[in-house]
């Protein structure tokens, strides 16, 4: 699977990244910590996450709200929110290419999470660890396929989105797992194994992208 990451393409926000794998492409931006626009968003002990996801076409619907909610569940586990009391961290996501059937959000969610990670790195917001997402699908024959294509998903019995944290270049904790469809417990564990090794491989690339961006920013250090 080829991954294309564009680092910091936008200049009005603090950090941004686009993440493209296969037919799916997502652009994310992170701004923060900034002053809360509304007093009710000011949390006394930690930062408020303002997440905003827009679909590639049409107006935002419950689909996007669900994605926003899932992202909102994952991010507090990786951002040191307590370092920014009363502040807001604004995360805006624009899906550019769906790359999957209408009813599915797996590929989009993976692209969203990965692009948000790179955008967070670029914004300099304090993170607990690195993390990465991938997705798998199980077809009627029980075969597990990582990073399924649009047609793979359409023919699958179940599909999963898995996020692992990465510690010292090794896959560490399971941060998030979202499975849809019918599957056996054993299949789930198999999926997690597959996802872990997939992430281990792919993360090298992301790390490479981040490193080259850092060295590009410190061009005078060369």
């Amino acid at each position, binding site marked *: 699977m080829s991954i294309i990451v564009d680092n910091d*393409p*936008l*200049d*009005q*926000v603090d950090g*941004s990244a686009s993440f493209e794998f296969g037919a799916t492409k997502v*652009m*994310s*931006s992170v*701004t923060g910590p*900034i*002053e809360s*626009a*509304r007093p009710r968003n000011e949390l006394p002990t930690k930062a408020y996450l*303002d997440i*905003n996801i*827009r679909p*590639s*076409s*049409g*107006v*935002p619907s419950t689909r996007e709200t669900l994605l926003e909610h899932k992202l909102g569940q994952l991010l507090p586990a990786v951002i040191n929110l307590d370092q920014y009391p009363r502040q807001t961290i*604004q995360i*805006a*996501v*624009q899906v*550019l290419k769906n790359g999957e059937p209408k009813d599915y959000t797996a590929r989009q969610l993976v692209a969203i999470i990965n692009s948000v990670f790179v955008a967070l790195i670029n914004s300099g917001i304090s993170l607990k660890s690195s993390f990465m997402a991938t997705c798998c699908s199980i077809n009627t024959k029980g075969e597990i396929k990582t990073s399924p294509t649009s047609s793979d998903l359409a023919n699958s019995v179940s599909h999963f989105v898995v996020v692992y944290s990465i510690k010292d270049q090794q896959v560490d904790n399971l941060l998030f797992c979202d499975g849809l469809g019918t599957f056996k417990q054993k299949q789930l564990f198999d999926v997690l194994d597959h996802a872990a090794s997939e992430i281990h491989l792919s993360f090298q690339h992301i790390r490479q992208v981040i490193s080259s961006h850092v060295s590009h920013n410190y061009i005078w250090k060369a």
Partner: protein
Amino acid sequence: MVRDYDISNNEKQFVLAALEQNIRLDGRKLLQMRDVHISVSRDEYGYAEVSLGKTKVACRVTAEITKPYEDRPFDGIFQISTDISPICSPFFESGLTTGSKQSNDEILISRLIEKAVRRSGALDLESLCIIAGSKCWAVRADLQFLNYDGNFIDISSIAVMVALLHFRKPDMEIDGNNVILFDEDQRNPVPLSILHIPLCFTFQFYNPNDDEENIKGNLNNELILLDANLLEERLSLGSMTLTINKNKELCQMVKCGGLNIDASMIMNCCQHASNLVDDLTRKINDVIKKDSELRKNPVEKELQVVNQRET
């Protein structure tokens, strides 16, 4: 609380002083546009990315078959969505309260685009009708504002028009009351019927001496510039948007308040915009032409070459 860019007096004075000497911070002349960069998607129809300096907008056009509005059975449906996401700048916050500065900007942008493209009849709605009163195409243009560096209006009009020109809807056949859609492989999809290409030009007005200077008298010392960037747009004391097509038809002229400008200067702006519209239209057509050439399948291309030899 309304958040805005904090622009210092020093910056303001500097920019205005420079404008007075016909210099802009990016080295342009007052009435010069930034370079327009247009790219269209290779592997799908109806997707265009346009950038004007650092301002960047994408537009995606989609179409589906629905029932037409009851009061307009012979027309198709065309919608433009112009929600501005905070992705382009934290200045545009989501879920704004009405009445704030930004939501006003947003409403104006969406109305201006709407009027420039839809009301001026750029897209032939009658051609979208399939079966009168029961089936028609609903075309939808979603604007995605990616980066804000001023002048969203002009760039949006370009992006919508390019995306509309680039879009192909599946070919179809009508069989009684059934509509048969053909796959891309079966039959070449067909372009939309675009009647003209309206383009927006937004002028900003400044008075380096004083806001009040020209309320009375005929000094007309206002500076007028085209295609403002972020800083210039935030410092502007008034703006006017003209929408013109290459037939030299004025499709829209909106000057909402701001500095009072002498009628003769407004006429000059119109003249200037009509000079620019040809170039820009040519540029758009070139992009579309190039794209459709790339798309032609190899067999056809060969045939074309043969034809050319013969003639």
